[in-house]
């Protein structure tokens, strides 16, 4: 079967599951609470010559980038892998004339697509909140670029979570590792080592320039994320070939 048909097959399996709902709800939740918090403490945030847009964005993306995004990536990987782990579906899947490589790749493509969906919703939600709250000048272009880069910096995390979820049918291991990594990133992002830690990258790219992006340039984060992603994919593929269902 060609890659396209395997992709269609995977999409059909997800049609009745609510996995896309998580990716829509998670960013909207953060946009709502971030905007509410901004309106509530507006007087405190806007002291001195603070830019309202940056403060609003900071409220929305800080906890989204640090905790909710990595955790929802982990939950999604568990979800996608779980479809096959339950009822021992791997065995049936492998008896079909499907290339193992295509199954692994299509699962990853869907995962990337779902993260992209949540990025789009985050972007639209943030712009919408900014218009409703009324923060003045909104830098549409820069924000779009930042959200796009954030999507790419998610790739290594995503690939790693996929391997863990396929390797361990037990959900405690992928979720536990993700929780540990995310909570550690709260500490590491505030230190100088943030640029060496993959879990810090999404929040560092999202947080407005004045606070984040410290010694993290766009080419650097793009290169490191793509290289790491390719390495993890190669490892994952090699492992997947030997996977005993």
């Amino acid at each position: 079967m060609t890659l396209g048909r395997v992709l269609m097959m995977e999409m059909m399996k997800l049609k009745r599951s609510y996995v896309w709902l998580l990716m829509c709800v998670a960013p909207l939740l953060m946009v709502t609470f971030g905007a509410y918090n901004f309106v509530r403490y507006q007087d405190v945030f806007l002291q001195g010559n603070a830019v309202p847009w940056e403060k609003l964005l900071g409220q929305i993306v800080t906890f989204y980038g640090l905790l909710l995004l990595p955790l929802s990536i982990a939950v999604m990987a568990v979800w996608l892998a779980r479809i096959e782990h339950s009822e021992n579906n791997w065995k049936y899947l492998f008896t079909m004339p499907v290339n193992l490589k295509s199954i692994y790749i299509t699962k990853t493509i869907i995962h990337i697509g779902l993260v992209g969906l949540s990025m789009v919703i985050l972007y639209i939600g943030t712009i919408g909140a900014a218009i409703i709250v009324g923060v003045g000048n909104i830098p549409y272009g820069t924000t779009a670029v930042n959200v796009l880069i954030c999507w790419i910096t998610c790739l290594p995390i995503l690939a790693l979570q996929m391997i863990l979820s396929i390797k361990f049918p037990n959900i405690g291991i992928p979720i536990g590792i993700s929780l540990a990594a995310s909570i550690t990133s709260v500490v590491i992002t505030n230190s100088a080592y943030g640029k060496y830690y993959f879990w810090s990258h999404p929040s560092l790219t999202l947080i407005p320039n004045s606070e984040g992006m410290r010694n993290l340039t766009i080419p650097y984060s793009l290169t490191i994320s793509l290289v790491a992603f390719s390495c993890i994919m190669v490892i994952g593929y090699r492992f997947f070939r030997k996977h005993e269902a």
Partner: protein
Amino acid sequence: MFHNVLSAEWAKLRNNRIVFPVILAPTLILLLQYANFKIRYTSVVKEGDVPWTIFIEQHAVIWAVLILPILAAVLSSMLIMSENSDNNWKYLLALPIKRRDVYFAKITLVIFFLLVSSLLLGIGILGSASILHLPGDIPYSQLIQTLSAALIGTFAVLTIQFWLSIKFDNPGIPLAVSICGTVAAIFLLQSALTRWLPWVYPYLVLPIRLNEGINITWYMGQSMVVGLLCLIIGYREFAHRDI
């Protein structure tokens, strides 16, 4: 009978690697706070503060807000997942045992593992403090109060997660609810309007200085009442379900 079901459930866990999250959770927070106190001691403990109080509070806040609710969700999913896959419920309930015993044996085990995890954290705090040479007497009662308050506060979240895990075959749904609720709690606990939501209770019941002016006992009661309510609703739903 209940005892037999409990030991059967225990036997199923042999090869389940359930120990991994139970040990990982306290270890993670102990390492983080050890590093925090080792490197930033002067900025964490201000003049006139009792080092031990700060030490316990720093552990308790992250433990109660972020880790304990997610741990409860992961543990209940793990225990129930073994039945959801391969449609094991049918075989299990064909045996001459009551659904009630199965339901309560599983939730008892989840509570037991949360207790073990809290106990490990307590022991770890004592060990970590002795490595750091924290001055002053060890406030055992404060330590026990804080850890058990966090457990009581998590009860409502635990029963909701347990109910969701048993309701949906796919563990993705309860886990998604859990992470969204937990991260949202960081915002929810700041506003008096949203303090009735269960994900906020683990923080609000902590006997720490940040919670001054909040009626801790009230929230403990609220957590227990909401928890028991969800436990009964979840059980009734499970008992009458067509499996």
